């Protein structure tokens, strides 16, 4: 029984690993369907809670699958689910970056790199908006982010933990009032 559960964790998450183009958000809907309706690992309510926890915790949002594995089969489940989601995509990424770095210095590689760099920078800027949209951020969030960015622009080597702590304190004090 327990082994069956581990196998189904693998069978569900390995394919998701390989289709999660654009990162975690692209597969959350599919994971929800599989774990709530198909396999009934968690209820819909539990899934929402786990999603919120994974977002609040440090690390990539796709650590959601760690929690699903943990809920279903304890520590073994957590490890199996995490590996199933991260290893296939990482192996693929390793192969691609190995080839990518192998041809470094060639004329076409330099052009590819110079061509992709502004797209990467544009995606980061878009990511800032996307994160705020998902979080349903208000004025206070933008203010804290703006001030943090300004401080880092002024002092690039400042330890960001200081800013995170300041942001946490500002929210804990002000959030009720705004």
């Amino acid at each position: 029984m327990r082994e069956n559960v581990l196998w189904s964790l693998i069978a569900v998450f390995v394919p998701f690993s390989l289709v999660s183009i654009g990162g975690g958000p692209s597969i959350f809907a599919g994971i929800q369907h599989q774990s709530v309706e198909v396999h009934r690992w968690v209820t819909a309510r539990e899934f929402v809670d786990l999603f919120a926890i994974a977002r609040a915790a440090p690390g990539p949002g796709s650590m959601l699958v760690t929690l699903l594995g943990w809920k279903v089969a304890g520590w073994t489940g957590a490890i199996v689910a995490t590996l199933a989601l991260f290893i296939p995509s990482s192996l693929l990424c390793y192969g691609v970056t190995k080839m990518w770095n192998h041809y470094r210095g060639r004329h076409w590689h330099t052009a590819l790199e110079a061509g992709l760099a502004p797209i990467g920078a544009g995606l980061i800027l878009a990511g800032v908006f996307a994160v705020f949209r998902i979080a349903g951020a208000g004025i206070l969030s933008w203010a804290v982010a703006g001030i943090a960015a300004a401080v880092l622009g002024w002092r690039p080597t400042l330890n960001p933990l200081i800013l995170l702590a300041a942001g946490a304190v500002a929210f804990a004090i002000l959030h009720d009032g705004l």
Partner: protein
Amino acid sequence: MTPTRDHVPLASLFLVFFRVGLFSFGGGLSGWIYREVVTLRGWMNDDDFFSGLALSQILPGANVTNLSVYIGQRLRGPVGAVCALTGLVIGPFFAVIALATAYAQIATMPWIQDAMSGAAAAAIGLLLIVALKGAYGASRKLVPFLILMTTFVAVGLLQWPLVPVVLGLAPVSIAFAWWKASSDA
């Protein structure tokens, strides 16, 4: 360009990603990685980092785990990739389970949730400064700047799907870079 990169110790690589993984709340991870790898340590230059970031986003998988594999591979080969990836994921692995265990208590203390949102907002500031730095770097050259802004408007404001946007813009951007390099040479 970066003569020290052959000597990046595996332990440093692991520790940098461990710290990024454990202390980065709410999606500011790429910004934090940029700060550690480019700004503080000079292990890579901007083009290296941003092109790797674009690759990481096109490939399947979480963007930051792909970015850690890219950086680890670039600096120290297969062992480097394993070190960076493990370092990134191991802290959050335990943190997320610890948080889930304590969730019932935390749910009754709203100020903790406020504090976590505040830390997350500050983390976005980290991402914002990297984005602005990239935009500033590109703004001196017209076409790369237009490509950057088009990417941002399409994916960020219009919420078009990322992969088709990147696949559509990449050939234009790369063709320009190719032409520019040829005409400069």
